């Protein structure tokens, strides 16, 4: 009964979405306030209906209702409760329902918290959002229905892929979707603005918090996925330039560009067409990701459901949505007036450069990801485009970007004082160079790139720090004035400081873990010792351990360094009963300078020992710390009062146009 209700409310939600996407928009056209007033309640009702549907499916998983095909294929009574719940979105149909839930959730959020939007804009945003909803809900109901039944219901399910029985991976999809699908809202804003025929600073201000939220979630989702890969896949790798990984990275790059471009649009009434374009592209890349994962067009370890018929539907969705938006863009775009003008050396100039680099980076990754498909379709044979290509293309682009990231915050709007800025940054530059040389001479002379990476990290961190101190005029005015100034700094600027510093720390982590990883693979018998990166590992024993739905072979390592350091690592190799699958659980101990990482492998028949893989992964915790700082930066920015209240923008540096707050 509950299942049927879940199915029923899902159908209702499709009707509601259809209503929400048509009637209020007609109301705007006819200037009929009553029709327009339908939009907000419709959005909320739509969300509630889909929530009901989602909860019904969750219920089926929790009670293990195996008469539902979706539950049978993806669950099992022996699974712990947390993973029964995460199983809801660990499959194609359920994850699409989550997609729809979050899509409607964002719509409801606008309905509830978009009080300061102009009524027509609000209706249009909700209308476009609802159109997206119609597309997704139709896709679910017609091709990917999670509520289909099977009679007679089997005794038990086929169990979830044991790799997905993991806390990190359980939360990876929801976070990722909150990001991906959040970009749908910025998309709706962009299309609504195009329909209105007006993009002004107020619009940019209203879009910013949603962009921040989507960006923050996307960052978190991607990093969570990388973290999972790091501890689960058994050798400390965390990014593979797999097509589906790229499919999440490209929207992230576009969203970063969008975030910064919308700042220029808001503060300087410029770059409007570009911001709109980015908003469309960012969501387009999200849809592209959905397409790539679910259509079977590209080979990937992530590939969900390789079903060409579903692929056709998603492709149609992509073409209609993005094609429609681009058509609107081609028609209305040229008439968007730009008022703010600025000198190339200015904050705007810096932000444009940042946008430029992010865009070509995203475009290059897109090219590389889709290239095998192009070559195959044109019958020119088969090529593979793997990590080596992406690294050689992406890394060089990031170098100038990080340099500019250090400089741009110092520049004023409209026209920056290059000389004054360079003076401040001279010291930072010197420190970075010294740091880089130190790494080159002392740590590693074989890789200039890694020294450069550390130098850039020092540069960005220091430059961001100096920017903050110069803003509060540290040591230039009495200390208590500086402290007072610090409290008065707008939250959005704290967001920038945290985010940029976070990136700097992450860059150091990325550089170190990619270049200076230490690996040791050998067969060890009980009592054998191995020294890796200064730490001595002793294999004490290996025993069999029973888990909730697996049997594990657990190795016990005693790790010592000098007199003070003594730690036990217990890696496992798990054999799951339902899917006859084996997973490795590495044992990781994080120190400030890196991770101690141990893996136990198969038994070696000849010697009676075990294959062990021991690694030292330098500065890996810095990657996660940096990422957390970036997300924190986004969160802090979000709490900036100006976003919530819609206060009038400071008129000091604005160009010729006026900004009217609502």
């Amino acid at each position, binding site marked *: 009964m509950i299942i049927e209700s879940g199915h029923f409310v899902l159908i209702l939600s499709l009707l509601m979405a259809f209503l929400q996407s048509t009637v209020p928009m007609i109301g705007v056209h006819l200037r009929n306030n009553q029709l327009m007033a339908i939009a907000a309640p419709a959005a909320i009702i739509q969300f509630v209906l889909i929530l009901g549907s989602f909860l019904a499916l969750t219920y089926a998983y929790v009670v293990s209702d195996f008469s539902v095909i979706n539950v049978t294929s993806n669950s099992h009574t022996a699974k712990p409760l947390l993973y029964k719940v995460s199983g809801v979105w660990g499959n194609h149909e359920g994850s699409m329902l989550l997609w729809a839930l979050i899509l409607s959730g964002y719509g409801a959020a606008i309905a509830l918290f978009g009080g300061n939007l102009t009524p027509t804009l609000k209706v249009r945003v909700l209308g476009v959002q609802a159109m997206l909803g119609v597309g997704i809900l139709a896709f679910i109901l017609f091709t990917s229905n999670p509520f289909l039944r099977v009679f007679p219901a089997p005794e038990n399910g086929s169990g979830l892929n044991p*790799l997905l029985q993991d806390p990190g991976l359980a939360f990876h999809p929801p976070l990722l979707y909150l990001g991906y699908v959040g970009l749908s809202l910025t998309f709706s804003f962009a299309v609504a603005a195009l329909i209105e025929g007006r993009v002004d600073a107020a619009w940019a201000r209203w879009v910013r918090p949603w962009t921040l939220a989507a960006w923050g979630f996307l960052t978190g989702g991607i990093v969570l996925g990388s973290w999972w890969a790091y501890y*689960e*896949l*058994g*050798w400390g*790798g965390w990014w*593979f330039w*797999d*097509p589906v990984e790229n499919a999440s990275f490209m929207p992230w790059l576009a969203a970063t560009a969008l975030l910064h471009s919308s700042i220029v649009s808001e503060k300087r009434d410029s770059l409007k067409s570009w911001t709109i374009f980015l908003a469309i592209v960012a969501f387009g890349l999200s849809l592209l990701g959905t397409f790539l994962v679910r259509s079977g067009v590209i*080979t*990937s*370890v992530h*590939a969900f459901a390789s079903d060409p018929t579903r692929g056709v539907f998603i492709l149609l969705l992509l073409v209609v949505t993005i094609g429609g938006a681009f058509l609107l863009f081609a028609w209305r775009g040229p008439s968007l007036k730009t008022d703010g*003008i*600025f*000198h*190339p050396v200015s904050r705007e*100039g810096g932000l*444009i*450069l940042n946008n*430029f680099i992010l*865009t*070509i980076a995203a*475009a*290059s990754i897109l*090219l*590389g990801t889709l*290239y095998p498909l192009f*070559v195959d379709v044109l019958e*020119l*044979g*088969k*090529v*593979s*485009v*793997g*990590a*080596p*290509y992406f690294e050689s*293309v992406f890394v060089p*682009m990031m170098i100038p970007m990080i340099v500019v990231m250090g400089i741009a915050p110092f520049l004023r709007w409209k026209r920056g004082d290059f000389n004054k800025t360079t003076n401040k940054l001279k010291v930072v530059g010197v420190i970075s160079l010294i740091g880089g040389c130190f790494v080159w001479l002392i740590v590693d002379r074989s890789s200039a790139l890694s020294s450069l990476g550390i130098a850039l990290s020092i540069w960005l961190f220091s430059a961001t720090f100096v920017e903050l101190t110069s803003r509060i005029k540290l040591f230039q005015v009495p200390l208590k004035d500086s402290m007072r100034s610090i409290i008065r700094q707008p939250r959005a600027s704290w967001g920038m400081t945290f985010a940029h510093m976070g990136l700097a720390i992450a860059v150091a982590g990325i550089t170190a873990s990619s270049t200076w990883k230490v690996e040791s*693979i*050998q*067969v060890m018998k009980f009592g054998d010792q191995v020294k890796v990166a200064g730490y001595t590992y002793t294999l004490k024993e290996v025993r069999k351990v029973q888990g909730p739905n697996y049997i594990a072979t657990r190795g016990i390592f005693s790790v010592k360094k000098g007199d003070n350091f003594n730690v036990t690592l217990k890696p496992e190799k798990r054999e799951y009963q339902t*899917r*006859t*699958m*084996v*997973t*490795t659980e590495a044992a990781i101990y994080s120190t400030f300078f890196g991770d101690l990482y141990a*893996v136990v*492998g198969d038994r*070696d028949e000849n010697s009676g020992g075990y*294959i062990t*893989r021991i690694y030292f992964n330098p500065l890996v915790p810095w990657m996660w710390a940096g990422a957390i700082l970036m997300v924190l930066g986004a969160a802090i920015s979000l709490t900036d009062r100006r976003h919530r209240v819609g206060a009038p923008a400071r008129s000091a540096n604005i160009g010729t146009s006026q900004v009217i707050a609502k």
Partner: protein
Amino acid sequence: MKFLILIITLLLSSNFVHAVDPGEILKDSSLEIRARAISKDLRCVVCQNQSIDDSDAELARDLRILVRDRILEGDSDQAVIDYVVSRYGDFVLLNPPVKGVTFVLWFGPIVITLIGFICLILFFRRQKPLIQDLKKNNAEVKK
């Protein structure tokens, strides 16, 4: 039946354990470094987008051993790679070769960057007269 389960196990568990065995590692570490570098660029043809170094698949293992045997026999890095490519085609190279069909791939980013640069320059050029006007206006106002 046992073999069926074995194969399914291998197929399902493949790709998720870093696969080089101690038994495969060459005694001479400089040769082993060469082998690992070559393996990192060779795609496991029975897997979903991984190098033979990263894959647990049987064929990946055999290819790893093949690479090492050829190095031991004196083949240069390029000769080893050429041999595998002569059997499986360019598909097996994770680092796509620079030839006709991959021209657009390798030069694409450069072309995109150049086009972008040109657009940027045009954009700022267009702004120049307006900036001059603004400076003039400001100067007049000051007067």
